[in-house]
């Protein structure tokens, strides 16, 4: 509850609502036709990718810092070739 209130104060939840509405439109216009056409491969790949991108979208809305793969790649390259 506290968490929800702090979100309300920040005004973040309105963005989350927009994201949820957007993704539900996507689900209606993308996933359901695939389900009806019985294209199971397409449907499941789409669902997995959709859940993944939906999670990231919600995390971005909540201002969670998502670790970028840029840092490990940079450290690997620097450790091999030097600066």
């Amino acid at each position, binding site marked *: 509850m506290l968490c929800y209130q702090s979100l309300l104060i920040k005004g973040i939840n309105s963005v989350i609502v927009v994201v949820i509405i957007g993704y539900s439109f*996507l689900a209606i216009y*993308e996933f359901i036709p*695939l389900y009806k056409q019985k*294209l199971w*491969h*397409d449907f499941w*790949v*789409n669902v997995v*990718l*959709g859940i*993944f*991108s939906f999670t*990231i*979208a919600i995390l*971005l809305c909540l201002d969670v810092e*998502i670790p*970028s*793969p*840029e840092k490990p*790649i*940079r450290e690997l*390259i*620097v450790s*091999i*070739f030097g*600066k």
Partner: protein
Amino acid sequence: MQKEQITDKEAICLLIVFIIGSSLIIGIGGEANNDAWIAGIVGVLMAIPMLLIFSRLLSLFQGKDLFDILYITLGTVIGKIVAILYIWYAFHLGALVLRNFGEFINTVAMPETPMFVSLFCLGLVCIIAVRLGIEVLGRITTYFLPILLFILVVVHFLAIPQLHLNYIKPILGNGLISVLKGGLLTFSFPFAETVLLIGVFGSLKTKKSPFKVCYWGISISAIVIIITTIRNTAVLGNMLDSFYFPSYAAVSRIKIGDFIQRIEVSVAFVFIFGVFIKSSICLLVACKGIGKMFNLKDYRTIVIQMGLLMIYFSYIVYDNTMMMRYWAFKVYPFYAFPLQVILPIMIWVLAEIKLKQ
């Protein structure tokens, strides 16, 4: 999946825009400073053999794209592993290019708008373009490329009063090593990225067309990039390295009789179109790869999700502009080298052996 075909002319235009897209504005050469144009020539010379290998691969397997070639030459299991690498590379490159665009807009045009807005707007256009397919991309590029070249030529002529050709001297003043380093950078940053175009040019018509496309595409884009670099050096001098976006800074110096000035938006136009085409092609290749990997009926069904993921990824990938330049000039050449050089050469050798048997 219905067969899509593009003509040679469209393919040449796609290749040119793909190469000049983001490198025109970020600049090439890195630490070579006023020898950046020599670094550009070195980069082109390094890139020509690689482009010949790419076009040889395309003409060996006519009508097949990158992922088909991988499965044919390496077998299903190893082919899938390498395909994952290429999908990741296409996805990452697309995100980096989108991010370049976001940084550009955020730095020069709209500093108070959140970067996510500009990324999202361009990303949506890319998603729509990729859903429409490679034919539409090819056609729109053929329409727009003459406009882009016209803008570039006019801006070059207008910049003549600002040129200080003595800034180019001393030639090779920083030594050969920095030029070679800059050459490697130019090789990996715009030119060898064309490895991704193997994933698209499977839709070319004849066996000979890849060589023609490669020949014309690389010569025109190399001329454009090298002339632009010479102009930037002659306008900005040794400060070239200290600008985030050298072309933009150079063009903003143009001032002819209090009347023609502040025409840097023309550069922005060229840049935005280039970024649009480049990230669309990256998204297209990533989607095609995933489509082939999971035996999807059509790659179009996953374009929206992949595009959204690409937008989010481009939003989180760097912290700031300095990190972007550090990455583009210090890390990227080594990171992309295996995917741009080592793997294509291996695939080519295996393909030649396989076809002889």
